[in-house]
């Protein structure tokens, strides 16, 4: 697959007329001598969900980590036209980038309330009311240790942490991974509501969720962008989906 041409080029994908909220240009990541990203370039639309797809190990999570300043990278990353290059992670967050990592990474030894308090950025009043409206369950579990929550509840804490503050962009990494089907639907519903007000770059394996949420899809393979275009068009093209992702939208949705 190395060097495969980019399919569904940007102009055919249509609609990206407004300035992108995030623009990656030639982002490269090398870790311990092995090249993980070979010059990744794509835009994140200023509204709605942009999905970042690909098989396991193609560099999706590394791309998010590189944007967050959690992996050393070259190339340029711009948020609303402002460069994020060379900024430490906490400053990137304070520019308005919320990050929900793979495997949620709640602080297991801290209570739910403490997890949330850590996420207060101190710049504006933390928005607890809308967060509790989205996750009523959390209000009753504030004193519970986050490590004792179920996977779905931990995902709610991880999402609540970023939603307490005003963001210009959310990076969300596999939010439905390992969750029961019913909880997957719940997470998708929350993300759908969140995406009404803030653009989201979503890494997701569940193509059913992708189809429900994403307007655009960027596909990585072996550290390169191999497709960038309309998400629905991609998922409806069974042959293309199978070739790029190794799974068709139908089986993905049933998982």
């Amino acid at each position, binding site marked *: 697959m190395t060097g495969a041409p980019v399919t569904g080029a940007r102009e055919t994908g249509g609609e990206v007329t407004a300035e992108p909220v995030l623009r990656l240009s030639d982002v490269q990541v090398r870790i311990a001598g092995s090249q993980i990203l070979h010059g990744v370039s794509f835009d994140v639309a200023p509204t709605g969900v942009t999905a970042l797809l690909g098989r396991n190990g193609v560099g999706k999570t590394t791309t998010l980590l590189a944007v*967050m300043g959690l992996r050393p990278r070259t190339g340029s990353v711009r948020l609303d036209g402002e460069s994020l290059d060379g900024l430490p992670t906490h400053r990137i*967050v*304070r520019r308005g980038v919320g990050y929900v*990592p793979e495997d949620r990474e709640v602080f297991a030894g801290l209570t739910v309330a403490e997890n949330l*308090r850590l*996420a207060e950025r101190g710049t504006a009043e933390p928005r607890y009311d809308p967060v509790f409206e989205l996750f009523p369950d959390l209000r009753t579990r504030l004193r519970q240790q986050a490590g004792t929550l179920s996977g779905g509840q931990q995902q709610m804490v991880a999402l609540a942490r970023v939603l307490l503050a005003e963001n210009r962009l959310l990076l969300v990494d596999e939010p439905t991974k390992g969750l029961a089907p019913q909880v997957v639907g719940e997470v998708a519903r929350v993300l759908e509501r969140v995406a009404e007000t803030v653009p989201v770059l979503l890494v997701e394996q569940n193509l059913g969720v992708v189809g429900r949420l994403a307007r655009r899809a960027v596909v990585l393979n072996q550290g390169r962008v191999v497709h960038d275009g309309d998400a629905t068009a991609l998922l409806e093209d069974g042959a293309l989906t199978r070739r790029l992702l190794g799974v068709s939208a139908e089986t993905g949705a049933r998982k």
Partner: protein
Amino acid sequence: MSTVVVLAVTGLGLGALYFLIASGLSLIFGLMRVLNFAHGAVLGVGAYLGWWASVHVGGPATARMLVAVAAGTVGSAVLAAVVELLLVRPLYEREVAQVLVTVGLALAIVALLSGIWGTDPKVYPVPSWMTDTSSVAGALIPHGRVVTVLVGLAVLGLFVLFLRRTRYGLVVRAGVENRAMVTALGIDVRRAFTLVFTLGGAAAGLAGALAGVYFGSVTPGLGSSLLIYAFIVVVIGGLGSVPGSALAAAVVGLVQQFTNYYAASGIGDLSVVLLLAVVLLVRPQGLLGRAL
């Protein structure tokens, strides 16, 4: 019975000193993944600053002792903060280099102390009420031992309050668990590094001055000999856990005293190492540590 009581109080006093050193070491390692080999040298500086200050102020022995303790605590805290800002911070995320810097600094500071004040023991001001004894369950207990234990407990209380009740304490606890995620929530974790280094330095300086009072004198090598036991305490207690350090310090102090007395002098050190080996085999994350 009286022997047991004396050994217990002496062991707990020693444990209190170990705890004062180990608590800072444990938090620094837990948060920053840096084994701070300079921690013993920071203690040595506190011990010598305390002694130096006590020589230069007049007044009764109690006042001079308090001055020594205050000077040692503040001096070591300042030194630790400067070390973090000037030497450790520029090597951020290069943990091997950070550890090497602390090793070099430890050697340099001990040489500096010997160069300035020589290697002879410096006698600490110890008021007579500290060496006086009271009878407890038939045993004659020196008051100084009890004071050391109480100071250790007070510092434990302060550390727990800091960790449980303050914003920075919350950042430290979270950072011990997952430092990258703390920064990914928009928190400049390096400020917590400086703070933890400074607090650890203060506790080490306090330990240095108290060790002077406890043993009656200080030498340039005081820090490095205590540091070894502090490392053992940190590992037994669980990296990053202050209550774990307190528990392990008490256990190590007691084991050392009792085996030295009932087995043979010198067996105490061996038994502590054996204890370490047993803990590592049975509970590698330490008594109150979280599984890594």
